[in-house]
């Protein structure tokens, strides 16, 4: 059974691999038969010291990076400091509809998204990051007329995405929203990543960045492997040398 949990699963087959802790069901999305949901082996989020990351220790509006579902696909975890909306209907570029159920944590304010811009695949690397959440009091050229930010911004081509509403694309050239990384919290306030919701461009990403993978992960084959058991979460400012945000 445990072996099976290493395999990528979709739909109802995910129900067969429930192992402790008991509250991590991975069923929430899978059993609803929702479109554009992909279940992965659940991954325990750990802090820099290797201890389980407690949801309540996240600082509000701070970018935390972890890799999921692949070794080389970065995600950003944020406590938005305000509840995400629930049951938001979204549409992928090909017209497929899907449902964002909301955030986790006691306020429903914790969300995670794949940090690969759906527009042209810009993403944080250990060298620099053009893609991140921008706190509400921040300013961005992507939304020159907005009173507050509180959005993900890709500063390469100035697209903005609304994390409160499932990562919907709200400005700039991106048409498709962010891929949500579905989280669950267990009875110990510990966070788990269990799946990905929405269209994703993991495949294109793997094709696009072969030289980069060589630099950071030895090769594409290793970069492509699924994250197993646990993922280390670090603040973006520690993950990357330079945060570039316009």
């Amino acid at each position, binding site marked *: 059974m445990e072996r099976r949990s290493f395999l990528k699963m979709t739909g109802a087959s995910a129900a067969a691999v429930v192992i402790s802790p008991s509250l991590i069901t991975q069923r929430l999305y899978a059993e609803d038969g929702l479109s554009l949901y992909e279940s992965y082996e659940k991954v325990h989020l750990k802090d820099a010291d290797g201890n389980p990351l407690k949801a309540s220790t996240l600082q509000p509006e701070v970018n935390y990076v972890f890799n999921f579902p692949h070794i080389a696909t970065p995600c950003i975890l944020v406590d938005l400091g305000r509840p995400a909306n629930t049951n938001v209907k979204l549409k992928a*570029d*090909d017209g497929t509809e899907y449902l964002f159920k909301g955030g986790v944590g006691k306020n429903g304010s914790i969300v995670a998204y794949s940090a690969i*811009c759906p*527009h*042209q*695949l*810009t993403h944080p690397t250990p060298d*620099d990051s*053009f893609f991140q959440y921008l706190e509400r009091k921040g300013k961005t*050229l*992507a*939304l*020159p*007329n907005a009173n507050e930010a509180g959005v993900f911004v890709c*500063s*390469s*081509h*100035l697209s903005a995405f609304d994390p409160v509403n499932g990562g919907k694309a709200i*400005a*700039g*050239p991106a*048409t498709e929203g962010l891929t949500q990384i579905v989280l669950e919290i267990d009875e110990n306030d510990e966070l788990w990543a269990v799946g990905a919701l929405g269209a994703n461009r993991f495949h*294109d990403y793997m*094709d*696009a960045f072969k030289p980069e993978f060589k630099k950071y992960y030895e090769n594409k084959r290793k970069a492509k492997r699924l994250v197993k058991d646990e993922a280390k979460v670090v603040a973006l400012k520690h993950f990357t040398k*330079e945060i*570039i*945000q*316009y």
Partner: protein
Amino acid sequence: MSMERRDLFKLAGVAAAAAVLPSVAVTTAGAAEIANKASGKTVLVVGGGFGGLTIAKELKKKDKTIDVTVIEKKDIFMACPFSNTYLGGLEGVSLETLTHDFYAPATKHGYNFVQAEVTAIDRKAKTVTTTNGNFTYDILVLSPGIAYDYKGQFPEWSEEKIAHVAHACPAALMPGSEHLALKRQLVDMDDGDVVIVPPAQGKYRCPPAPYERTSMVANYLKEEGIKGKVIVLDTRGGKFSKGAAFQESWKDLYDGIIDYKGFTKVIDVDPAKNEITYLEFTDAASLLEGDPEEAKKHTIKYQVCNLIPNNICSPVIKMAGLETNPAGYALMDGYTLRSKTDKDVYVIGDAVSHGIPPSGHTAIWTAKRAAGQIQAQLAGKSFDPKAGLPVPVGNVCYSMVSGNPEEAIMVTHEFVAHENGMLVGNGNVPKPKDGNGKFRSKGTGKATREWFAGVKRELFM
């Protein structure tokens, strides 16, 4: 019979199975062979640049049953955006950075790519004649880009003289041999001056390009230890795209290297002697009046001369018989990306007459927008030409001003439905957060590279 003929034109991805003989093939004398499928959803795209490749991909992404064929006269894609970093010799920028094959995206997204030059467009018969077969369409998309107007700018020059100057002083706004020639000249140059002549007037491709090039060539002279100047013979008196930002950088980085002359009129080039002759006026008003007695005449020697003539629209727009403005850009149907003249002909990229900047980023934007409008039209639905307007950032454009360290400046444009009936871009040149009060920063330098890498992913993945 018809099957055999069609088989002569072997196109990747086109199933020759359906023996649908388009009606135009019967009615048009001498044009019996039609190389693409007439499906009722046939889109023909003329031009495989930023606009053309984007719309082909977008249409196939939106609806796989649309038949899309791209006709492009070049065999290799080469980008104009980012090419100044190649001319300036920035680290790791090679020809490979700027070029790509056309086959990969066509195969991946399922459109046809045909290398051919368009020789005639018959809007009545809905056919396009090329050097590699005849094509039919339900919707024609024209993304042909620009042409140079040597004749209009230098009426006294003969055809031979124009050809001589075009080769000896390559403009390098239409990538290919022009860029390679200019690069070769820069690499081979001795100590001495480089003269850059921006287009004297009117709309031209990539408004900051001559000034980014000035910066990159100055960087090259500096890095290589070449004793010489970059002399810019301009007409704009410093009031050009990102003008304040460029001039701040020039002052800080290239003092004594860049010699910017803002009120000049180039009157002759002698490529045999490496000499350029120009009139220098005192201000904008005297330049406008153009009285030679009010100006000083200079003839100077150059090592390399980059003469960028005034731009006009590609002649393909006129070939299609579309109404145009005096410079040949297609008149548009209100705020749409459809031509004013023919509801089945769309125009994108630099060839539009909308008041939006002719940049690679804008070309992609027009292509995506036009794809939505075409999809609606093919489905017999109406669309709102003002949908989504104003767009806060329709264009974002970086210009590299320094090579070591790499630093760039930027501009963004809001796109609005202007009361003049056209799409119009309103520019904003921000000071980046990491610029310490300057217009340029290292972050924007990195963003310049990431912008271009992203655009290549957009076109080719």
